[in-house]
């Protein structure tokens, strides 16, 4: 067989599979978002209703706006905290040596843990009667003694954030350690010869060279924060009330629990739009020229 035919035949199954499992549902969701799309109605009653689902979300649903704000706040807090803490940890661990390499190896563990299980374990840790973290905070910060974390809107949000960053910092630290190790030693040594040390060395030499990797970390984490579902579902199930209801959770509830697939699809598509921009930004880093 000629290479010219073969090369397309080789990619065909993969392209078809990606099309069927990702592109089709994306397009079909868009179509559903313009229909009544109620699970309990027969196909004949699923007529097109234009942008009604979208206007309904924007104008008639405070719960939609609530989940938008929860998601944005969640994303802002988790992205900034994970990035800063992961950078700090990466700087601490990058020099290597026995202790540091050992810890680097362990960093893979939280990321191999199912996010659903992370949610469960944090619910365990913050149990007001026998939770270890609950006891810890209660001991060192008496304000929190005897507090029922998951029953308080603000504290429940804080626990969701803690579970999230606990799961993500280790992995992003590994990414940043990789970035740090690819900074040429000569530039650092040259700066040290010039008398730069500590903070100035970090700000003027390390940070600019690390910028592309940091950008990748921020974009990647933003994407995953925006679509957070698993931990929140297991940890608070959106509660108390709707205090921790992220967009994914809101879509899940409206689509699958209340059977309003059409409405859920419209909210889902509102969520896809920022993803397109983030993906575009991410792809620029993947395809950048060396």
């Amino acid at each position, binding site marked *: 067989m000629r290479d010219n035919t073969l090369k397309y035949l*080789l990619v065909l199954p993969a392209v078809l599979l990606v099309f069927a499992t990702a592109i089709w*549902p994306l397009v079909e969701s868009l179509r559903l978002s313009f229909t009544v799309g109620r699970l309990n109605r027969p196909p004949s009653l699923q007529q097109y209703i234009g942008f009604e689902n979208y206007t309904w979300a924007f104008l008639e649903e405070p719960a939609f706006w609530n989940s938008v704000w929860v998601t944005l706040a969640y994303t802002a807090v988790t992205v900034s905290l994970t990035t800063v803490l992961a950078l700090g940890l990466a700087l601490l661990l990058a020099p290597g040596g026995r202790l540091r390499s050992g810890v680097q190896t362990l960093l893979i563990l939280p990321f191999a843990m199912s996010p659903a299980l992370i949610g469960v374990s944090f619910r*365990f840790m913050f149990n007001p009667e026998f939770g270890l973290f609950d006891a810890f905070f209660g001991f060192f910060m008496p304000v929190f003694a005897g507090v029922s974390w998951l029953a308080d809107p603000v504290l429940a949000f804080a626990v969701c954030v803690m579970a999230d960053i606990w799961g993500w910092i280790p*992995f992003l630290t590994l990414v940043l350690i990789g970035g740090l190790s*690819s900074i040429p030693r000569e530039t650092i040594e040259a700066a040290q010869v010039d008398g730069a040390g500590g903070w100035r060395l970090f700000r003027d030499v390390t940070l600019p060279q690390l910028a592309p990797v940091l950008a990748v970390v921020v974009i990647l984490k933003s994407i995953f924060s925006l679509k957070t579902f698993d931990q929140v579902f297991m940890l608070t199930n959106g509660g108390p009330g709707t205090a921790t209801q992220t967009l*994914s959770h809101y879509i899940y509830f409206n689509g699958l629990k209340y059977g309003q*697939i059409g409405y859920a699809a419209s909210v889902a598509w509102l969520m*896809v739009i920022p993803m397109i921009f983030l*993906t575009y930004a991410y792809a620029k880093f993947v*395809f950048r020229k060396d």
Partner: protein
Amino acid sequence: MTGKQKKAFWNAVQTGLIVMATLIMLVPIAWIFMAAFKSHVDVYQLKLFFRPTLENFALVFREPYNLGEKLWNSTLVALATVVIAIPIATMAAYSFSRFRLRGETVMLVTILATQFVPAVVIILPFFVMFRDVGLLDTRLGLILVNLAIVMPFAIWMIKGFIDGIPLDTEEAAMVDGSSRLQVIRNIVLPMAAPGLLTAGIFCFILAWNEFLFALILTSKDAVTLPIGLALFKAEEGDLWNLLSAAGIIIMLPMFILALMIRKFFVQGMTMGAVR
């Protein structure tokens, strides 16, 4: 302080911070490991010392929990997902790596982008379709949607590995009269085998930990391990000793697999954005 003292002081501070971070990372995991061996009474107290028991691991496999079924479902679904995904991804990855295709960049970006589509968007149409064709609560249905998660990673990861295989041997074999398919089978596949295994393990972990699809699509027969966690509730609340035992069964195999491929974890997850 002299320079030497200053340096020693800084080293101590750094070591302290590293130890603290490691503790924060390990304590929740260790706590689950401990709770899994605690008796029903001990788990509801903040006890560091207790009489360990294996009872929880026996209980989770019995009625009404039947964790064995979920374990079987998880294994089968994750394994089937990988067995379908890896050969298809390898073919595509080879082509992307060695040839110039029309629309190559568009295809690669699209494949990359599908990884970022929220799972909840993908699952809505699949739920409607599976309900109509009777694929709800089947392992087959779950395998199909899991491919959506796994394929982009598999293609990009394997492409990375094949990019790293030098062209010379392939070209030499072609000069000696081997066909392209013979070259792929006799030269590329053996050389890429460790990479394929790594990608397979990575995808297995993703499929194993997958939650949202299984939550929505399964109800009884095809329930996987992460969804099975919801079983351990009684009227008086969560059964933490059983939850922890189930947690270990979920995470321990993944810890072992992840440690096996830890050098490639970052590359796999970032799809070549970090080099």
